[in-house]
């Protein structure tokens, strides 16, 4: 492969073409397969339904994937460094409950801003504890975050003894309802802005590039002077904050918070990241790929609903898609 590339470059003026080629391949590195899958999926749904390819429906899909999308950004960072975070669903619920408890008039009544900030701090602390369990206690990430998953869920239930908190100010719920400029709700906008920020961070910041090195080989990164432990702590903390933010977005969408929310979301999130081309062994993945993975899951759910497919069959289909996506990725790598 390398040989034929080299030959064609020699003929056609080496540097400019090689650089352009490199840029293009860098942009789609590892996401070409998922992107094609997403486009085929959209094409198929456009042909089989009248309603899929409408502005209204596309906006619906975006609304539906905000919670998943925001969580998947954090999960991408964790998976990139070779970790995993099973606690995001529980942390989402805990953050939402903390926000409700602090803000709601029936409880502390300290106002929404205080509620939101407290929720994000608590979620970040959950992530940080997971990180410390991994870096200091040397627990495998799977175990550390499995423990946090249980602890956070329990705490979420303890706040109101398991009951939900209903009713938030109108301005808060309208964050996810009112479409500014005719199409963009604040929550969808938030997801897009976060995706852009983190994509830029991972691609162009020294710290972001260091995460790829840690995932590729933690020992190489350590011997190269990268502070592996502190970056690992930060990554889990950020993943926690983003899970908390997703909880707040979910609260705005539902106008209520309940301790059982977000159950099983960690698996959807991991699925989206993996469908997007990330490797569970670390070092490979991107926000762009994750965005495609999130959209594939969102579009698939939406499309199957439009087609009237039962939710039980939907679960089967999504399982098959996860297996197919990762299998094609593995085959492609082996072919290389």
């Amino acid at each position, binding site marked *: 492969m390398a040989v034929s590339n080299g030959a064609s470059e020699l003929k056609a003026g080496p540097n400019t073409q090689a650089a352009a080629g490199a840029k293009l391949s860098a942009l789609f590195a590892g996401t070409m397969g998922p992107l094609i899958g997403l486009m085929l999926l959209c094409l198929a749904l456009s042909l089989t339904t009248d309603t899929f390819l409408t502005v209204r429906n596309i906006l619906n899909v975006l609304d539906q994937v905000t919670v998943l999308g925001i969580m998947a950004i954090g999960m991408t960072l964790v998976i990139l460094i070779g970790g995993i975070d099973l606690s995001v669903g529980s942390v989402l619920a805990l953050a939402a409950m903390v926000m409700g408890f602090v803000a709601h008039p029936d409880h502390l009544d300290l106002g929404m801003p205080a509620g939101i900030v407290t929720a994000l701090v608590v979620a970040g602390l959950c992530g940080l504890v997971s990180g410390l369990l991994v870096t200091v206690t040397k627990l495998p990430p799977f175990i550390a975050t499995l423990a946090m998953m249980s602890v956070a869920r329990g705490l979420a239930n303890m706040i109101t003894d398991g009951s939900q908190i209903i009713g938030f100010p109108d301005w808060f719920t309208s964050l996810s309802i009112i479409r500014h400029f005719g199409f963009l709700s604040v929550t969808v906008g938030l997801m897009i802005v976060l995706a852009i920020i983190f994509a830029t961070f991972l691609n162009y910041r020294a710290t972001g*590039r260091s995460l*790829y090195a840690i995932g590729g080989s933690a*020992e190489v990164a350590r011997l190269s002077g990268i502070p592996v432990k502190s970056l690992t702590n930060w990554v889990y903390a950020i993943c926690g904050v983003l899970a908390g933010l997703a909880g707040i977005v979910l609260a705005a969408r539902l106008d209520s918070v309940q301790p059982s929310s977000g159950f099983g979301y960690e698996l959807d999130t991991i699925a989206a990241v993996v469908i997007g081309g990330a490797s569970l062994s670390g070092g490979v993945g991107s926000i762009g790929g994750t965005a495609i993975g999130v959209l594939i899951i969102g579009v698939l759910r939406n499309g199957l609903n439009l087609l009237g497919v039962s939710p039980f069959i939907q679960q089967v289909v999504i399982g098959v898609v996860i297996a197919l996506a990762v299998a094609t990725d593995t085959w492609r790598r082996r072919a290389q």
Partner: protein
Amino acid sequence: MSLDPSHTHTPHLGLFVSGLCKSYGPVQVLADASFEVRPGEVVALLGENGAGKSTVSNIIAGSTKSDAGSITWRGKPYSPASPAAAIDAGVGMIHQELKLLPDLSVAENVYVGRLLMRGGRIDRAAMNSRASAQLKRLGLDVSPERKVRTLRIAAQQQVEIAKALTLNAELLIFDEPTAALGSEETELLFKQIRKLKAEGMSFIYISHRLDEVAAIADRVVVMRDGRIVARHERADVPVRAIVEQMVGRSVERMFPPLSEPGSETLLEVENLSSPERSFQNVSFSVRTGEILGIAGLIGAGRTELVRAIAGADPISSGSVRVAGKPVHLNGPAAAIKAGVVLVPEDRKAQGVVLDQTIGENLAIGNFDHVAPNGWVFPKAVQKFAEAGIGRLGVKGRPNQAISKLSGGNQQKVIIAKWISRPPKVFILDEPTRGIDVGARAAIYDVIADLARSGMAVVVVSSDLEEVLGLSHRVLVLSRGRQRGILDRSEASNVAVMELATS
């Protein structure tokens, strides 16, 4: 001493190895190896790392297949297809890395794969009593129900031997059995070997320690570069003679001429010890432009020592100064900042991120240079990578996957990664391991250039020729202790090996 075993062929029921050959790709690791092991005798197999000792013993123990040649064992043709087949034929091997299941009991380990059954259930009583009997035969009083993890290394080794005995082994191959043993434990092992020998068992004994060989072996076979170069009918051959046979090849490689070192001392190491005692009280200094070689056998503590100096592993006591300033050794980052960089021993696991490109690998650890304000732009990485690639003559482009490069070029990338800082102390651990002989000269040139540009260079190598050819001075370690520092003029194969096996 005879080079042709056919002359010494007296029929017996031992092991005859004749004309074994083995190649991996173009590399021939074993060429026409022939020797014999008679019943009730210990044959020592000696040679440097890579001489072919492990290959020949792996073939006899059934874990490797030979390309050509034949073996006769107990009067019958013998070509084991697997270690299990070898064991069935009465041939066992005790590896340097013990192959035990640490969380199972002693008895379970002895009988693993063929647990004693009675009425469809595991017969623990029988297993325990029989394992216990074998352990007593070795003079070892250990409960068969104890978990192997809780035993000392020496006792674990005894469990391996007991396992071989219950398999009715008639020939045991020991690969560096004493590498992890103390002197008393070694004595116990020798006692057992002598006892089993008297019962008619045969042994192939691989070791680096020539003093031990003289104590335990009946005969000695010396290997070099995949060939058997000498056979001695007695073990009390002068150490000097064996060492010369082990290392005695003419130097074919081209080492670059070394420049005169400067007078300023750059690296000072004082009384450095590791918490695991893998090295103790090591003191040396390296001047600008000087190359210090560190020689020693596997397990002598060379890698542990240089990793500690580079901040990769903790130390228990001692100090390191660079250009007069003490270095706080609390991690690689601090050492790098102080100007100490390490090219690690295991290139693929510690040196390069195989998933990434050459450019990305060069940028790791240099983001402060590539991205002064934290922004890493592909153009900056490209420019930085091209400079490093050009300076060391790496055959590759910045955006090429590093996994596609040869070992030699990967090693150059790792060296190039550090060169631009520039460091004050450059440490290279096994710089040519796994690199073709033809590509080594280029690495040697690079190392000599590092010294010429004024750095203090430390080179660790298992390849004696390499240490001698590259170093102004050679520090020799043995079992974690510093045995001496030889000047280039007095450092010879024999002198180093004598210190390294002391």
